[in-house]
């Protein structure tokens, strides 16, 4: 083995083959999964789609996927409750879907790309649907985007407060 520098540890991500230069050690703290997962929960107003959320929201997301087919969208539009009853979903998930409460759906393990099938079926754009999670009206939210978007200042870390 050639010299890898100081990073010859179990979590070493490996020496680049090919022409790239420079020793590559553990990337950030991604070698420590507990610390890695803890940090993902430290972002204000954000639910990172972790394995835990993916497990919790599995059938919610699979339900949303079903709306990629026109025949399912037709049945969903005709009777939302009846369509939901065909799925293994908790009452909380069903209610949040009927309410189009997207923040709640994120808490229940929904992922935005899956939930997009629901709001697309409603004829909503990403911007319109996303604005509903921010506490702003669509008009206010669009004005914020047109003015350059939300600054990361102060919303990077809950613990750090920066």
């Amino acid at each position, binding site marked *: 083995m050639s010299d890898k520098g100081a990073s010859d540890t179990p979590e070493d*991500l490996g020496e*680049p*083959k*090919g*022409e*790239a*230069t*420079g020793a*590559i050690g553990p*990337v*950030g703290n*991604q070698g420590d999964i507990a610390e*890695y997962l803890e*940090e993902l929960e430290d*972002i*204000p*107003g*954000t*639910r990172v*789609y*972790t394995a835990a959320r*993916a497990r919790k*929201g599995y059938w919610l*997301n*699979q339900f949303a*996927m079903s*709306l*990629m*087919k*026109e025949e399912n969208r037709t049945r969903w539009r005709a009777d939302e409750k009846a369509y939901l009853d065909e799925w293994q979903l908790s009452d909380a998930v069903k209610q949040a879907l009927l309410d189009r409460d997207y*923040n709640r759906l994120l808490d229940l393990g929904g*992922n*935005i*790309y*899956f939930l997009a*099938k*629901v*709001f*697309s*079926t409603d*004829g909503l*754009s*990403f*911007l319109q649907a*996303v*604005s509903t*999670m*921010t*506490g702003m009206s669509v008009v206010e939210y669009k004005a*914020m*985007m*047109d003015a*350059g*978007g*939300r*600054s*990361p200042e102060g*919303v*990077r*870390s809950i613990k750090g407060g920066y």
Partner: protein
Amino acid sequence: MARITAGVGSSHIPLLGVAVDQGKTTDDYFTPIFSGYEWTKEWIKGEKPDVIILVYNDHASAFDANIIPTFAIGTGERYKPADEGWGPREVPDVIGEPDLGWHIAQSLILDEFDMTIINEMDVDHGLTVPLSMMFGQPEAWPVKVIPLAVNVVTYPVPTGNRCWLLGEAIRRAVESYPEDLNVQIWGTGGMSHQLQGPRAGLINADWDNTFMDGLVGTSDKNRTIPHIEYLRETGSEGIEMVMWLIMRGALGAETRLLHRHYHVPCSNTAVGHIVLEPVT
């Protein structure tokens, strides 16, 4: 022998596809976005690439919550545009390059990248929007495409370093293919954006531009950016930018900048676009 002659980075925001499909690209809202692609549209007519290795992510279209491939390569003959909830985009089918696709898949696996191989799938806005940005509205796409899908949705997604190394391995695979083919690699997605939760709408132009700076020349500092930095600084969906590192890794030790464009906003997202060539 086949060669990677250029790398292209581009956002793949769904609204860009809507603008093309509905003929709105010269509206006041879209003009500052699309004008930054004019240079590339002219350039690519002269370059005439045979094949694009198109690095993108599937947004819960071909892959549902059941099977989550970290890296998947398309070896199919053709791919249809996906129905993402509002009907499929009316764009041409994407024509594959199974011979080169299988060559790359085999090479990567022997090079210790354990790829998932996909023969049949529909392709969503992640793949078709960049084609529209570069080629407009042709009867048929003027290139063959090898889709390379990356999981950037379910955590953990691959590290930036792993993406860069995959890019290097793709370059070795392409260069070991005997046929003379002009191959480009595109990295798509980003730039800063967050589509969920009360923090939605986050944009970080300074960070995005520093990231683009880091793709040019001999720098490889982007490869060590941890996931948490993308999340904190660029929003929960800004992580898509790791896909640009596959493109960058495939260009070798040094790149030359040919074109660069940045605009805020398009929908919820910062638009970034860069054209690079390898310095060999």
